[in-house]
């Protein structure tokens, strides 16, 4: 029996609202702008090639870095393993574009490291061949160093839930650790590796900051260029939809080839994997293998950033800066709360009423995550201009537009969190409370809320970090006098003040580190 009540109506309404920008963009796939054939003739294939190159590069690097570290820290103990357990996630706290700026500042032609090495060798730049970090390869490396934690986290969670008997069985059959790794552990971990890689690749392909700075032409830089340079929104939208199509094909392929195989062990009695102790040379190797991603993905950039911060913070932190800080924090907190509550309403509604329609709408509203921030901003501008004209009000240029943009982009994270949290609550709880005559609201308050608060907290924290790190969408939609730390750091870099940019960047990173640690602690507790 379907009965429409306020909960259903409001959640359906919100879901539709969130899906609109994505749908608007989709409709542009079939409409070509006047420049489309020019684009096809000149740059389109380069965008496709570069995007594919980046996808593969990032996929391979993050898979290797993320899986190897997850494997080592899940199955073995060695010197520093308990430290790396947490530390390997830290690169999450630093936005990709900030790492790009820092490495650019260190390794480019006049960078600190380059100069140091040149002085050491006593040579001039023209005499020495050096790997130019500001290239597509540099972009791939920098992004992989920051994004591998996606693979790391998902693989770790997966391995933790994997029963130890499979590994034991392989050992009794006479296989060495190495053989077990490639014959058993890797094949079984494949869905986790793929899931993590897809998240990393999606972020890499949708990135603007790094590609722009390092001079790499991709779909996203092409979108900006077509939109701003040629003034053609239609062509830009078409590029955007092609990009999204790319991503969906990717996701679909992965789901399809996974359809028949179950990778979870079906045993009832579950013993988590007990860690093997490594000593001597093997322990050193393991330490080294974990140290490299930690060092290059976090320690090195963070140290450089700290040095720059120390040199410039007195100058940069003034009243205006504190305003920016305050604005960023309040925007982050408010958006995180709003999106978390919204996602909860939507997913709870699906659970209560089990409507196919509501469920499908919910899945559509997740699309926003795969759309680059700048593209979402375009969609919202168009959408809001229609609303503004029809209702004769002004929504674009207010904080509403920005929060709406964050909602479209990030609600997927929150919905995923809640869906996963709800799936752990057996339906029998709901049934039991129904038979006890407890109404929906009471059920929610007394039963659901305590059980779901972990998902809510995780959602809040993740969205908070994402909002604080977000750059292109904020840049385009923000109201007057409203800058965030991310926008400020980007501007400072734009003014060739990379050193000063470390000040707002440091705040972003510190907030990120705190949030990441809280999240991880909760995860380990579960």
């Amino acid at each position: 029996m379907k009965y429409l009540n306020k909960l259903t109506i409001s959640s359906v309404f919100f879901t539709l609202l969130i899906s609109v920008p994505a749908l608007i963009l989709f409709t542009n796939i079939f409409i070509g702008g006047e420049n489309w054939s020019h684009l096809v003739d000149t740059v389109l294939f380069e965008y496709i090639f570069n995007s594919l190159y980046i996808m593969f590069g990032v996929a391979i690097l993050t898979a290797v870095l993320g899986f190897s570290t997850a494997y080592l820290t899940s199955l073995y103990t060695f010197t520093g393993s308990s430290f790396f357990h947490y530390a390997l996630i830290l690169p999450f706290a630093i936005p990709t574009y900030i790492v790009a700026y820092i490495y650019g500042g260190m390794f480019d032609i006049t960078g600190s490291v380059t100069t140091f090495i040149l002085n050491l060798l006593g040579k001039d730049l023209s005499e020495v061949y050096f790997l130019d970090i500001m290239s597509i390869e540099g972009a791939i490396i920098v992004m992989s160093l920051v994004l591998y934690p996606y693979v790391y986290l998902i693989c770790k969670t997966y391995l933790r839930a994997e029963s130890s008997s499979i590994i034991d069985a392989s050992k009794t059959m006479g296989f060495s650790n190495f053989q077990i790794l490639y014959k058993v552990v890797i094949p079984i971990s494949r869905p986790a590796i793929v899931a993590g890689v897809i998240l990393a690749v999606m972020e890499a392909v949708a990135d603007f900051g790094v590609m722009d700075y390092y001079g790499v032409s991709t779909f996203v830089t092409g979108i900006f260029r077509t939109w701003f340079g040629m003034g053609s929104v239609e062509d830009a939208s078409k590029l955007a939809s092609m990009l999204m199509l790319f991503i969906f094909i990717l996701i679909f392929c992965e789901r399809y080839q996974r359809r028949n195989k179950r990778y979870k062990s079906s045993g009832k009695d579950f013993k988590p994997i007990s860690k093997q102790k490594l000593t001597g040379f093997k322990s050193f190797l393991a330490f080294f293998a974990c140290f490299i991603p930690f060092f290059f993905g976090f320690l090195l950039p963070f140290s450089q950033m700290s040095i720059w911060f120390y040199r410039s913070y007195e100058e940069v932190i003034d009243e205006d800066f504190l305003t920016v800080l305050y604005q960023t924090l309040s925007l982050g907190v408010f958006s995180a709360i709003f999106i978390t509550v919204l996602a909860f309403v939507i997913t709870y509604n699906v659970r209560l009423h089990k409507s196919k329609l509501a469920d499908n709408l919910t899945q559509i509203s997740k699309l926003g995550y795969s759309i680059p921030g700048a593209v979402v901003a375009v969609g919202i501008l168009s959408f809001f201009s229609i609303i503004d004209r029809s209702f004769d009000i002004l929504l674009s240029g207010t904080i509403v537009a920005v929060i709406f943009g964050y909602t479209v982009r990030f609600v997927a994270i929150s919905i995923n969190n809640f869906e996963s949290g709800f799936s752990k609550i057996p339906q029998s709880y709901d049934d039991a409370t129904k038979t006890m005559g407890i109404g929906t609201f009471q059920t929610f308050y007394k039963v659901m809320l305590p059980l779901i608060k972990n998902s809510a907290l995780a959602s809040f924290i993740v969205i908070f970090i994402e909002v604080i790190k977000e750059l292109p969408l904020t840049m385009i939609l923000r109201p007057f006098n409203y800058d965030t730390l991310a926008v400020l750091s980007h501007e400072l870099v734009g003014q060739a003040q990379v050193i000063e940019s470390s000040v707002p960047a440091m705040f972003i990173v510190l907030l990120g580190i705190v949030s990441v640690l809280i999240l991880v602690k909760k995860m380990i507790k579960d």
Partner: protein
Amino acid sequence: MLKKLALGTLVFASSLLASNEVNIYSHRHYDTDKQLFKMFEEKTGVKVNVVKAKASALIKRLESEGKNSPADVLITVDAGRLFQATQKDLLQSIDSDYLNKNIPAQFKDKDNKWFALTKRSRVAVYKIGSGVEKELSTYEGLADPKFKGKIMVRSSNNIYNQSLMAAMIAHHGEEKALEWAKGVVANMAKSPKGNDRYQVKAVANGIGEIAIANTYYIGKMVDNKEVAQAEAVKKVKIFFPKFENGGTHINVSGAGVTKYSPNKENAIKFVEFLASPEAQELFAKGNFEYPVLKGVQASKLVSSWGTFEDDNISISTLGENNAKAVKIFDQAGWR
């Protein structure tokens, strides 16, 4: 819920009208501007609210906002964008005696919809002692194979390059412009990346020999806190190329009052202020740009670079040819 939102925003919007403010959409990204806004606030008591973004984004936003837009003034760093804004009917013509008298004709819109505030040139920067300056003469000449492997220039995504190309198209037409672009691409020391200062740093350190950059960046690099910049700029010098049938390429940063400006009077005051001697001095001394106001001198450093003749094409042409310029860049492979 929508109703509450609408109400709230109306209140907000009307409060804008009632209060003493001026709302600026600016693409200028220099710190001198902060000082300028403070100066204006102190002088007039009018509060300055700013949104900074790329000009194209600002223009899109103005388009979307339509007549409900709270923007009063649009400031760009490039003539092309001013032109675009005019084409899209986003600016209004204003009647200001001060501006009419003091801004030269070639630096304002014929309908008084925008006014240039500063002038900058796009020049060739070379390493002292390399001897390459003896070969430099025209922009067209940069495509000559003798400069193979010597040119460092940023991406064509950047509007400064797009305007330079627009000027090239105006002088020689699209076909020759494409040939020129291909020639320059063949001469590039590295594929385009980084900003103007990056090109200068490269040349100073032995990568390439000629950097293409805007003049004011050179000024900003002198005594810069970043040691690499300060050191690099000591090793280079500016050469002012010209067009074969024209002068040295110039561009302007300018402002216009938006069509639906809610604080029109404040907006006009603000633009006039930007053209006032104090503001022009600040642009000149603080940001190393060439002032447009008659009687205001360029800074000593800027003057020391030498003099040049402004190119003879109209500023508006730079905007007219922008889309064509981007296409030519695409076809020539100048990323």
